[in-house]
């Protein structure tokens, strides 16, 4: 498909190797609710290079979905407080008003939503839903946008796209709908795609297909992708770097290989242990993380994971660990007693094992085997 000149901002000249594509600096996002202010994203900073894949992992309520919406600026109009900056292709998104953002949205920065059952308009033909972005950002006329929509459907692996282009979402399966959503997100060849739990609503067999498709298209088009998920397994083989979020903060950030080989943060370790393995003996107990993430209206003092951490010490409960490095500069973590070769450096580990000293913990069997169900 020929890439056409977009009717968007001055983005054409951006991204010629001058710095990272996306720079998020000390981003905070809070919601005013009746119970108080929910600090869903609480001081997050990171960068994404052109063409790279960043995985953002965390359980339900860790703030990862809000983070992705906040990066885009796609937040509800009221009762939201956002601070910090987001630079995209050299432009400060956080300084733009909505009419300026609309020129970036869909054109250079687009989003794949979690649930393909609800994220497509149920009463509009899928072809129309693809074509409207093309008409808006690429200035295509009706005929051209229609034929491009067909090509896009073909490129995301939808059989007989000439016919399907006239179908409605309810006539397609979940996997097909997610393919349509990818086609919509990629229609105008954006530089960065935010994929928010793109496979959570799908059957396991379809999940891999969709992720592979996304990876192929990413390579072809040299896009950067932020893959938001609760499932470390999803990002393990696909992300260049991984950010682990907990209670609105980054708790560990590293290149994927480093994160898996040299896990520093007990929370990351716990996430890994909660993935069921085929090699485990039948009937083996799954190491679920006891308890639930903290209430973001009144987060605990000290390390936010301390109430659920089996290695937590008094220091952890009193002062918050900064995001820091030891040795390798691209491996950041927030823990007073980081793991070394899988073993905690905290003193008196053996005494504090288990959920007995854990005020917010429910029974371990009540916690989900994975890190959580679909969060919004």
């Amino acid at each position, binding site marked *: 498909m020929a890439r056409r000149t977009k009717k968007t901002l001055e983005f054409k000249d951006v991204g010629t190797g001058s710095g990272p594509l996306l720079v998020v600096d000390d981003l905070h996002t809070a919601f005013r609710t009746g119970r108080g202010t929910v600090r869903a994203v609480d001081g997050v900073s990171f960068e994404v290079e052109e063409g790279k894949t960043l995985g953002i992992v965390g359980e339900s309520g860790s703030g990862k979905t809000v983070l992705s919406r906040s990066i885009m600026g796609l937040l509800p109009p009221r009762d939201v407080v956002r601070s910090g900056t987001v630079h995209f292709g050299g432009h400060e998104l956080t300084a733009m008003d909505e009419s300026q953002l*609309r020129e970036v949205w869909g054109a250079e920065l687009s989003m794949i939503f979690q649930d393909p059952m609800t994220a497509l*308009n149920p009463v509009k033909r899928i072809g129309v839903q693809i074509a409207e972005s093309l008409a808006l950002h690429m200035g295509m006329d009706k005929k051209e946008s229609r034929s491009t929509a067909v090509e896009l459907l073909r490129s995301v692996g939808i059989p007989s796209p000439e016919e399907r282009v006239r179908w409605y979402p309810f006539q397609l399966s979940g996997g097909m709908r997610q393919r349509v959503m990818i086609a919509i997100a990629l229609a105008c060849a954006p530089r960065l795609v935010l994929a928010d739990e793109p496979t959570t609503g799908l059957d396991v067999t379809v999940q891999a297909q969709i992720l592979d498709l996304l990876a192929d298209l990413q390579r072809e088009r040299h896009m950067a992708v932020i893959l938001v998920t609760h499932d470390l397994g999803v990002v393990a083989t696909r992300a260049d770097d991984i950010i682990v979020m907990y209670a609105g903060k980054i708790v560990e950030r590293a290149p994927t290989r480093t994160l898996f080989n040299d896990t520093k943060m007990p929370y990351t370790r716990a996430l890994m242990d909660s993935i069921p393995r085929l090699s485990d003996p039948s009937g083996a107990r799954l190491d679920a993380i006891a308890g639930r993430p903290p209430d973001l209206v009144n987060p605990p003092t000290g390390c936010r994971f301390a109430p659920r951490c089996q290695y937590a010490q008094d220091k952890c409960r009193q002062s918050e660990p900064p995001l820091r490095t030891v040795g390798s500069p691209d491996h950041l973590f927030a823990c007073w007693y980081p793991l070394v070769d899988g073993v905690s450096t905290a003193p008196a580990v053996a005494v504090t094992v288990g959920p007995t000293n854990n005020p917010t913990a429910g029974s371990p069997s009540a916690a989900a085997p994975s890190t959580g169900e679909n969060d919004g």
Partner: protein
Amino acid sequence: MGKYLLRRLLQLVVVSFVISVLAFLLVHLLPGDPTTTILGPNDTAANRAILMKQLGLDLPLWQQYLTWLGAIFQGNFGNSYLNHQSVTHILATGAPVDFELILISQTIAFSVAVPLALVTSRKPNRPLDNVSTTSTFGLLALPPFVVAPILVAVFAVGLGWFPATGYTPFTQSPATNIHQMILPSVAITAGSIAVYYRLLRSDLISTLQQDFITMARSKGLSSRRIMWRHAFRPSSFSLLAAAGINIGALIAGTFVVELLFAMPGIGYALVQAVEQRDYLVVQGIALVVAIAYVIIQFIIDFIFTIVDPRVVRE
């Protein structure tokens, strides 16, 4: 879609048949009989029997029904027992009045309610929304027989912009007709505006919370396009259903306005006929009104197939 509509059409035929039986029986279930109406209460039993025979009322019910229905298929609904006007004539002069009243009042209702809902639902509980929600709540509490005298007092008697009463057929003088139609139409439009506005507003507010609206925003579409192209259609289902019921209820349900503005509609004719036990007139009007109702529901069903493609398959 053709199959779906065909099934609906078949249902329509069955329902119409049932209605015709009910309309026919209904009148026979009422106390009193037409001979009393025609001859007065003091005539002899023998005279009544003769008249019964002349009118065919001595025959078994099923025969009377078939005779009645057979004549209707030839366009003959019979004549009024009282003034000997043909029922067909009463319907032909009355129906346009009701049709016009409904058409004008509903056009006003939609053109006020829809834009208002689209504007206010974007920012619920802001001043504009609060004012419209409260004032439509007020409209809902005002029945036509309250609105109509106020309108007459202000716009006919006070300002003299419109006539207080009277009806001229459209075919005779379109300008005069429209001029006379405005006040009565507005009088019945108030309730419709309130219902349509409130339904559409609350459905829009919940639609705007949907993922596909956030998705549409993330494409960079303008708010106006999102409201009209993405939010309006999926929010219009209850509006459409309510419009069907409301319009149905307005057929022959406008007799209060017809009475107040002295317009010869079928609603008024029906009430009169019931009062005077003018059986054939009641039967004829009831049948036509009920069938019109069924046809309107059919049209609404048809619009549903356009607005929501899912109904056809489900």
